[in-house]
């Protein structure tokens, strides 16, 4: 294969990093080189949400994002959420409501829930379903996921009010 690799610089979970990246490499595989496995490829077609990460604050499917395109941008993964050692309120709510079984889809749901609650701190069930419709869970922990989002929303509002 021709050498299509290029040096890129980007911000990864708040830290500046560089990497040598081939043109065909996708963002999930790039993150694996940094030992970050929370975003993971499942369908590989932008249909399941297992590979959800934020690029410049926007949720994208890592499996459909070419790694070279994050040059100069900021990438945030699920691993950023507990960097201080404490779980985020969304993560804690997922545990308390038992909102997963195998856990393979969980980082994607957790990331999307953070985005949802940023945009809409008080979503009703319909809004939750609409926002998370792009994420699949084959274990079908959907009832618990909806409850977890509601619990996280309530706790975050209470924390804000205090």
């Amino acid at each position, binding site marked *: *294969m021709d050498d299509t690799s290029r040096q890129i610089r980007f911000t990864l979970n708040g830290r500046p990093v560089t990497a040598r990246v*081939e043109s*065909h*490499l996708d963002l999930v595989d790039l993150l*694996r080189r940094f030992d*970050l*496995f*929370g*975003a*993971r490829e*499942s*369908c*590989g*077609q932008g*249909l*399941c949400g*297992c590979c959800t990460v934020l690029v410049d604050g926007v949720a994208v499917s890592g499996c459909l994002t070419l790694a070279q395109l994050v040059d100069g941008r900021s990438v945030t*993964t*699920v*691993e950023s*959420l*507990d960097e201080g050692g404490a*779980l985020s309120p969304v*993560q*804690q709510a*997922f*545990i*308390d409501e*038992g909102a*997963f*079984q*195998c*856990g*393979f*889809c*969980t*980082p994607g749901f*957790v990331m999307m829930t953070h985005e949802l609650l940023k945009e809409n701190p008080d979503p009703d069930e319909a809004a*939750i*379903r609409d926002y*998370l*419709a792009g*994420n*699949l*869970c*084959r*274990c*079908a*922990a*959907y*009832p*618990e*996921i*909806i409850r977890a989002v509601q619990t996280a929303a309530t706790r975050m509002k209470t924390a804000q009010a205090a």
Partner: protein
Amino acid sequence: MNVMRPMPAGQVGRSVPRLEAREKVTGRADYVHNLVVPGMLYTKVFRSTVPHGRIVSIDTSAAEAVEGVYRVVTGEDIRKVVPEPYYGPAFHDQPVLALDKVRHVGEPVAVVLAEDPYVAAEAVQLITAEYEELEPVFDEVEAVTSRAVVHEVLKPAGTFPDLKHLVGRRDTNVALDYQLRRGDVDAAFAAADRVFEHEFRTQQTMHTPLEPMVSLAIPGHESLTIHTASQSPSFVRIEIARLLGWPENRVRVVVPHLGGGFGAKLYIKLEALVACLALLVRRPVKLSLTMEEQFYTISKHASTFRIRSSVKDGKITGRRCEVFWNGGAYADIGPRVTQKSGFTAPGPYDIDNVSIDSYALYTNRPPAGALRGFGIPQLVWAYESHTDLIARELEIDPVEFRRNNILREGREQATGTAMKDAAIEAVLEDIVARMDWSKPFDRGTGPLRRGRGIAIGFKASISPTTSVAIVNVYGDGSSSLYLSTVDMGQGSDTAMAQIVGETLGIETENVKVIHPDTDVTPYDMATLGSRSTFHMGNAVKLAAQHARDQLDALARSLGLPPGTNYGPKDLFKKKYGMQAGNIVGVGSYIPDYKSPDPATGLSDNVTPFWMIGGTGVEIEVDTETGHVRILRMVNAVDCGRPLNPKIVETQLSGAALMQLGFTLFENMEYDNGQVTNASFADYKIPGIHDLPARIENDIVEAEQKSGPYGAKGVGESATFGVSPAIANAIHDAVGVRLTEMPLTPEAVFRAIRAQKG
């Protein structure tokens, strides 16, 4: 004396959060998916494009010429490592890579190895193969008489005595013909008031675990380590050792968390291939399937079920069942599905005269194996649709008709095994009560018609199977549990730790569960068929009791009076003068079992326990589009005493929702043997919008007396009733009967149109 009870019991029955919860929500849980080892080669599989054919030639030269390709391997190369490279749990029929013949589209024919997975993927496209095409057979009923023969000769594995009679049988697609005969069915039919006969069909579907199947083999010095997303590490080790002609102890199988399994990752899948490749090239080799490739690897049996019943005075007096299982090109565990599920085909009803014929068929489709329910959902679909149709014809309320015929505690099931700790009635009555069945029901208006339906089913546990567990208590009193049960999301780690906690009187959260590693963890038959809670649960309890007994003995030997408040830590200290030592408790469990008489299929002890599940639904049908909306779903099960009620509830809704997908839309579609929708773009699985507006899950009050702390398995039970409950509700709403799954809007709409003429 009870030195081990510093904590009150009460570990069992508590909704302990999953032990690995934190790893999972932070994205840090270990999956084989993540694993990379130094020197590792990636692989990509070249697959057959024809459903049935002789391999004339394979040209790998262009692929080999691609820069970065390490090697290309075909079936003949595999023979250098394993001269007889055929594997499988029931039949040794599946070649590691195709030899001589291909039997389904997607069958692995060659493999490219490269350091860069993208190079392997590019090079694999340059391989070409020529086939002499043979006539294929795809339908399970046609396969019985078809001229097309998938395997020239049957090769049962020899591990199962009841498959012995098949050895060497030629020119047939019938991989197993199981039969059961009880009473006199013909006489019952002759004496009946009415006889009813129907045929029901189910479609082929796929498990689609979100972590696609993946295995990694690392060759060592006269040894081999396989990291694999497998539900059956012990079986993988035994089967790989058999293929290589090695003793078991040279093969090590390691399994971390699984990103879902549902039966897809059972027995042996990619492991034989990576093992052979690693030994061939003397480097670690990893094979990760894509979502698409999973559809070519394993699936759920399509089936045809002909069911005929005689009724006299409102009682079912006789039932004949003929079930055809579409096993695809390789047997996998299909013959066990055919038999072990086959004998429950008459349903949870008290019927004196029963005849069952259950056939495992080879066809030229991708193989079918176990999928959450092991054939039971296909059977319940048929017998509970049939039950409803009979009740309608006789103008008896379907619940009343079930009550009249239900298999009560102590009565014999078709095999002759008496029902014990099987709360069938309680499950039915629970659903009936919660649905307010006797109250008037809003039937909708205009184009939106409402209906409701109920269905119940049951399953026997696969038997006889063994589990072994080890509990290790360390010098500071902390402990670990060693077991080869695989936690693929069902929560077994947590439930098993609860059993240790309860037995030793310690907090569940303080028990560490050591994941399967056959160098370290003892034998377990496999994580399948909802067997772990009962079998492994009993083994774990025995292991913990064994540890407790030794601690009690240690206390006695140290001269401590009974009832003394010494914890294990203090005992070790007193004994060794410092923090040192271990107590190792071992537990091994195999239930009693009597194999069925080969001629009649009868046995008075065919299963150690029964699983019961049922579902009721209220639905709305849009008569203008055929669209079915589930307004309410009520699931109830008998799982004995739940070890962890919250995890059980998640299992119930998870199972029911998975079956909802199989019922309403999931379907592997074909064009001349080629799956045409092997991707989430075209093969839809349930998403969050498919969740019914209301879903309720209930665990009925029950106890499995032979189970650990009264518990038994539950992972599949809530799948049983879903499909027929929905079909029954559609009939109730709009008066049409669908006999073929999936119940798509198109199928419903067509049936409504046909009814209108």
